[in-house]
């Protein structure tokens, strides 16, 4: 009894002492956020015709796919019995927001992402299915679905359909991540989560993290290939990162001001929590290092003129800090929402384990996995004009 209650302060109901939603549940909104954000960046080029970000269009799509494939894994690892997740589709539970997420996910994966990538790459797939040999030839052949029609007419059709799918894809990306916010925001018993602003804040923070991730991946892959970073592209991405961030920050401030002014019965408890148990992750990492510093860095590049190399470093620093800040935000939502008692009279602790099923080790593995998948995808569907083809 006394060991169990270690770290408990004041009064907790028995089922609140131990946190049920672990670090893995922190990963889930983080990863889906990266998916939605990366896709929205890709659609900038396609729908809003922002030519400058073209070099990242395909990379952003593949990044979104790589992370989308990993997105359900933390949930399955947390729940156990991954084979049962299929039952969600067999016997849909229409009144459960969590169960319906399966359909949102499937829609986004099958109808939006895979289709858009396929249409965009069809020409290369057909060409590769003819030039490759061995197993890979058959892989590409299968991907052509047996049609090697890449006449200008066919490509025009692809372009049209691809455009329509991107247009459908934007609200879908909002749905995907807004939905994650909705799952938290609709828990009315929990004042830390219950807010109609939650889905909107989630969407904008998703855009911020996704754009930052693509920026880092773009610079990293370009340098790895020993190519020149396209500064016009980088400047544009950074500008959009800045805009999205300003909106995100204003929304979070709005939420904060609203809570402070409303000061309902939960306020003192939550306020105390933010100043004690969440101090480092919320105030230091999320707000200061993860929001204010990158915002100032990005604002500086908008106002003053810097050398290219300096700009690149500033963008990278701002993006990395942003990624850490958004991770802290997910952490504070998920873990913070479980640290206080619904009686508002006590607090518990979250003890992160290491090499257990829901520990730090599997979480790190799950964050590395999308990069391995991305590496495979890039090999399969090169997002940049291949040197092979040029040679």
């Amino acid at each position, binding site marked *: *009894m006394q060991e169990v*209650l270690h770290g*408990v302060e*004041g*009064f*907790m109901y028995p089922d609140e002492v131990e946190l049920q939603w672990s670090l893995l549940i922190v990963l889930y909104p983080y990863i889906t956020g990266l998916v939605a954000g990366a896709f929205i960046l890709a659609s900038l080029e396609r729908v809003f015709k922002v030519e400058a970000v073209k070099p990242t269009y395909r990379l952003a799509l593949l990044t979104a796919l790589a992370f989308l494939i990993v997105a359900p894994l933390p949930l399955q690892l947390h729940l156990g019995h991954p084979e049962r997740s299929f039952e969600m*589709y*067999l*016997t849909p*539970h229409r009144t459960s927001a969590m169960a319906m997420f399966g359909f949102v996910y499937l829609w986004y994966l*099958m109808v939006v992402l895979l*289709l858009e990538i*396929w249409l965009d790459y*069809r020409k290369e797939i057909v060409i590769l299915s003819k030039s490759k040999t061995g197993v890979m030839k058959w892989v590409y052949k299968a991907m*052509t*679905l*047996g*049609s090697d*029609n890449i*006449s200008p*007419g*066919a490509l*025009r*059709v692809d372009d049209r*359909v691809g455009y329509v799918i991107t247009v459908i894809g934007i609200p879908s990306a909002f749905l995907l991540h807004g939905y994650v916010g909705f799952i938290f925001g609709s828990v009315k018993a929990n004042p830390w989560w219950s807010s109609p602003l939650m889905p909107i804040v989630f969407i904008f923070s998703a855009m911020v993290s996704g754009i930052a991730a693509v920026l880092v991946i773009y610079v990293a892959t370009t340098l790895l290939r020993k190519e020149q970073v396209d500064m016009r592209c980088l400047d544009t991405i950074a500008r959009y990162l800045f805009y999205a961030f300003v909106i995100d920050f204003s929304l979070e401030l709005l939420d904060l001001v609203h809570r402070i002014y409303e000061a309902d019965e939960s306020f003192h408890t939550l306020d105390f929590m933010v100043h004690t148990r969440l101090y480092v992750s919320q105030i230091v990492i999320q707000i200061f290092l993860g929001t204010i510093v990158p915002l100032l860095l990005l604002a500086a590049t908008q106002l003053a003129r810097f050398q290219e190399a300096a700009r690149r470093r500033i963008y990278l620093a701002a993006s990395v800090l942003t990624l850490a800040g958004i991770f802290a935000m997910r952490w504070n939502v998920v873990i913070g929402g479980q640290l206080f008692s619904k009686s508002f009279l*006590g607090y518990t602790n979250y003890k992160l384990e290491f090499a257990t099923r829901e520990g730090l080790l599997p979480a790190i593995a799950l964050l590395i996995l999308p990069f391995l998948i991305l590496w495979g995808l890039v090999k399969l569907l090169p997002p940049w004009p291949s040197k092979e083809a040029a040679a």
Partner: protein
Amino acid sequence: MRIWKDAGHLIRLALLLGMLVVAFLVIRRAVIPEGFGRYGHFRPAALEDVRAHPIHFAGRAACEACHPDVMELKQKGKHAGLSCEACHGPLAKHAEDPEVKPVLPKVVALCSRCHEANSARPKWFPQVNTKEHSGGESCEACHKPHKPKFGE
């Protein structure tokens, strides 16, 4: 009909998706349990499965039928609200066949489970620092488990 010629790959894709949907529907038919959803979002046979679980608790009424003395004593004391098996543990086997002797609870561990002083417990609830309070003696040296208030 140029458009159909150039959209041939899309028709193939649509056919593929159609096949996937059909395959899904076939699998769905095959694996959904009989009568799913008849009483709610579960399979009706689950009720039978649950009913087949062995019963562990006999319930307070059963104990009181054979132990009226304990019941009477307990009813007058502060523990009147507690169920017998809250302290004695599940005793369905004993209630069915009294020859199966129940193991008596370990007193100090049992009492401390509810009465050990803890700031997370509501203030009104009687609690003591057992070590200081009992001076190492077992609780039933001074308290009757079934009618615990001292001096009653």
